[in-house]
């Protein structure tokens, strides 16, 4: 079974965001695999370790530097990669069209991806890919079992946990609590350098959403800060919560 994992390169979640010429500056920012996608990579590698998957292919759409994200996934244990060259400003529709085109050529049995990117938080692309390819999908999974041409997925749902069964091929998106991604070993990093990565151009598509303005949230004025004996501090805070915030005590 061939498993394909879509990964996106994002800013480190500890990164401070600054604007330059109306755009988000990536100067000095550490770029990582989107943490939700990293979990999908780990999930795919574990399927291979359990002899369910035979090959794990990484696909990333983005600028040249997205190659680093692919190499990291290969160092974790994936077999080969595909970089779909695309402007980093592509919207969700363009991204999904480009990835779906690359996926179609690979004809995988299972497509994994993170359910959301930690930076733009749009959570659309895996579902859009499934629609383009005419495949079932399940989002936000915390576990998967593959047997008899079916994927049984446990996923986070509104107000509970859901168990859903779909036939494969299917598009499955991961929640971070699915697993704990491994760190690439030194051996893995060395091997990753030799693993094949193909580069293809993105399929053309028109953007559906236009960014008209980027801004930083308004900076806030300094609040109250007290350093007192715990009894006094708790009393002062309690008074403030009652009088200023008007909290209700149940």
């Amino acid at each position, binding site marked *: 079974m061939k498993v394909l994992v879509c990964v996106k390169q994002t800013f480190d979640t500890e990164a401070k965001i600054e604007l330059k010429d109306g755009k988000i500056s990536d100067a000095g920012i550490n770029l990582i695999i989107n943490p939700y996608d990293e979990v999908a990579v780990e999930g795919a590698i574990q399927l291979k370790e359990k002899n369910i998957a035979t090959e794990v292919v990484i696909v990333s759409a983005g600028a040249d530097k997205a190659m680093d994200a692919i190499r990291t996934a290969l160092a974790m244990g994936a077999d080969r990669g595909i970089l779909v060259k695309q402007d980093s400003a592509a919207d969700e529709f363009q991204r999904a069209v480009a990835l779906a085109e690359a996926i179609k050529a690979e004809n995988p049995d299972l497509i994994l991806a993170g359910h959301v990117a930690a930076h733009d938080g749009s959570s659309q692309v895996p579902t859009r890919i499934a*629609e383009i390819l005419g495949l079932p999908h399940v989002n936000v999974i915390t576990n998967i079992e593959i047997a008899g041409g079916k994927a049984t997925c446990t*996923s986070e749902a509104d107000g509970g946990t859901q*168990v859903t069964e779909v036939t494969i091929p299917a598009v499955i998106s991961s929640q971070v609590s699915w697993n704990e991604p491994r760190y690439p070993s030194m051996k893995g990093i060395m091997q990753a350098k030799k693993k094949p990565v193909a580069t293809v151009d993105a399929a053309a598509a028109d953007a559906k*959403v236009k960014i008209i303005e980027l*801004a930083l*949230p308004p900076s806030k004025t300094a*609040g109250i800060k007290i350093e007192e004996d715990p009894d006094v501090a708790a009393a002062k805070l309690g008074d403030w919560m*009652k009088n200023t915030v008007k909290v209700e*005590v149940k």
Partner: protein
Amino acid sequence: MAGTWVFVEQRDGNIRKVTYEMLSKAKSFGDEVSAVVIGKNVEGLAPEFAKYGADKVYVVEGDVFANYNTGAYVAQLAAMIKEYSPNAVLFAHTFNGRDLGSRLAQKLEVGLATDAIDAEISAGKGVFTRAIYAGKALSKVEVATSPVMATIRAGVFELAEAAGAGAVVKPAVAATDADVYQTVKDFIVTVSSRPELTEAEVVVSGGRGCKGPEGIKVVEQLADLLGAALGGSRASIDSGWLGHELQVGQTGKVVNPNLYVACGISGAIQHLAGVNASKVKVVINNDPEAPFFKAADYGVVGDAFEVVPKLTEKLKEFKAQNA
């Protein structure tokens, strides 16, 4: 153009508050507002939407809609959009809302602004504000494909009651069993006496400074006194003191309560990103240099394990006085 549609988020007839928030906001666009409710035995819910100004309520019922499933819901909505041509369709930014919105948007080959915290919709165009990088930046986007589509974050729009006609419209059922590609095997309802993080008016969170499950217990006591949702920073999740679904931050839940109380949380940037939208932020932390103090409206330098129980006692006194 047949105005703005609000897709009703409900499970077993329990309607999510965000549905009413969307109806209230949609009213301000000056065009017709409709609620769209799909499910099994849901017609009885229709009068609820009229209370928040719905001019029309589209009611679609059938066994195929008994459990939320993307395929049937998308097929139904796509057929209805074709028939009635709404100007805009709004969904809640819940797990179901984003799942449905994304697949429907791709089927119609239109744009979708997800997790919007503000919206302005006119004929053929929507302008939405999205909090990106988990709130570290704001992105204003324009969606001019038809219909205009977005998913809306819970708690960002004020509720405004307004009498609407609530005229029930019953579109033809367009979805069939053949549209269903997900088989729901089980649904385990999370049993909690506390509100959900993303919808709560007060959130109380515990972090590393709680030092262990005992420290989390005092945080829980404060949360319950305030009728608050319970959350945690990554440290308390990774230590196993709290379940992952309670993580607040860039890789967890983004919250926007009226009051956020951080107990023993230093305020790593990825945590602050998830709480920035809170109206009032309080922190109790023993490191006076902790970054959370810069973000907080009220900060107490002190050991959460010591201060939090005393705060709970103090607040209990107010309750006794009021009684």
